[in-house]
């Protein structure tokens, strides 16, 4: 049963990745990336890594999708076709298709897959990686930290700096989304479609609204009655 679930989720993951490459509308690619994030979070859950699945859901399917959509709403959603296409490469006077890169890639991938056959089994308690700090965490966490859950004591105490770094990353993402959202709300209240200076003025106004001071005191924004004057 585990094999069936793992196989199905990995197959759907591959199909989603191919779909992201295939679609030309960028909004559709962002939606498929959201599905990719849900699938990988499901895989993490099947592998018993619940905290990683939490982070993947919150960052991948929530914040990352919204941030990419904010970018697309400012930039535009059509994929520009390249001006030229590599049909063939002339090498030493003869033109042939680029076979060498794909041969190199397949060969390297095959060598790497062959190398994984020597690795110890997944989750085996006799693994070398489980003999170093893991026994110390499991044995000493009870009377050193005092929390019944070993995962919490590892995350919050033994590896506290890692957790602080992750929290900083998520906080930065949230601040970025807030700035983008406030800029879009100001632009909508003006009712114009001009890009360029309008966007810079709006971003400056959004920054002022969020932090109470402008980036450049000499850059005067449009006159408004107050920070909540918009609000579509």
């Amino acid at each position: 049963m585990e094999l069936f679930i793992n196989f199905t989720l990995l197959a759907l993951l591959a199909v989603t990745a191919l779909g992201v490459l295939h679609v030309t509308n960028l909004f559709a690619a962002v939606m498929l990336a959201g599905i990719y994030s849900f699938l990988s979070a499901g895989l993490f859950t099947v592998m018993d890594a619940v905290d990683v699945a939490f982070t993947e859901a919150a960052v991948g399917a929530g914040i990352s999708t919204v941030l990419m959509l904010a970018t697309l709403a400012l930039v535009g959603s059509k994929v520009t076709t390249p001006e030229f296409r590599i049909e063939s490469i002339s090498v030493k006077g003869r033109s042939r298709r680029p076979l060498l890169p794909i041969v190199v890639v397949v060969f390297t991938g095959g060598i790497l897959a062959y190398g994984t056959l020597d690795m110890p089994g997944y989750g085996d308690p006799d693994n070398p990686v489980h003999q170093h700090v893991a026994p110390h965490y499991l044995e000493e966490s009870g009377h050193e930290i005092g929390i019944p859950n070993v995962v919490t004591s590892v995350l919050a105490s033994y590896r506290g700096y890692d957790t602080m770094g992750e929290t900083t990353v998520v906080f930065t993402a949230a601040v970025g989304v807030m700035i983008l959202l406030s800029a879009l709300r100001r632009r909508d209240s003006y009712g114009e479609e001009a890009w360029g200076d309008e966007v810079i003025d709006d971003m400056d106004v959004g920054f002022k609204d969020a932090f109470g001071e402008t980036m450049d005191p000499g850059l005067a924004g449009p006159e408004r009655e107050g920070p909540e004057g918009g609000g579509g």
Partner: protein
Amino acid sequence: MFIVATIAVVVAMTFAMVRALLGPTVYDRVLAVNMFGTKTVLLIAVLGFLTGRPDFLDLALLYALINFIGTLAVLKFFEYGDLGRRVDSEGEA
């Protein structure tokens, strides 16, 4: 019985993905992603009972929240962003 429910939920996820890949308009894809999120919630709940560890339900609750907020944020951008405003400026309501 959990095996039947798991297979049914995985089949529903596959169909949602087919709609996400096929859907001619963007809103079809938003619908597919929303449905995929709720199926993921169901899959986590059923998998928890299948493996005998139903302690993952906090994760299912979080997914339900994230999916809901994400869908509403996506639709808000579609309404006030590039697509919706261009239609508004042409004179339609």
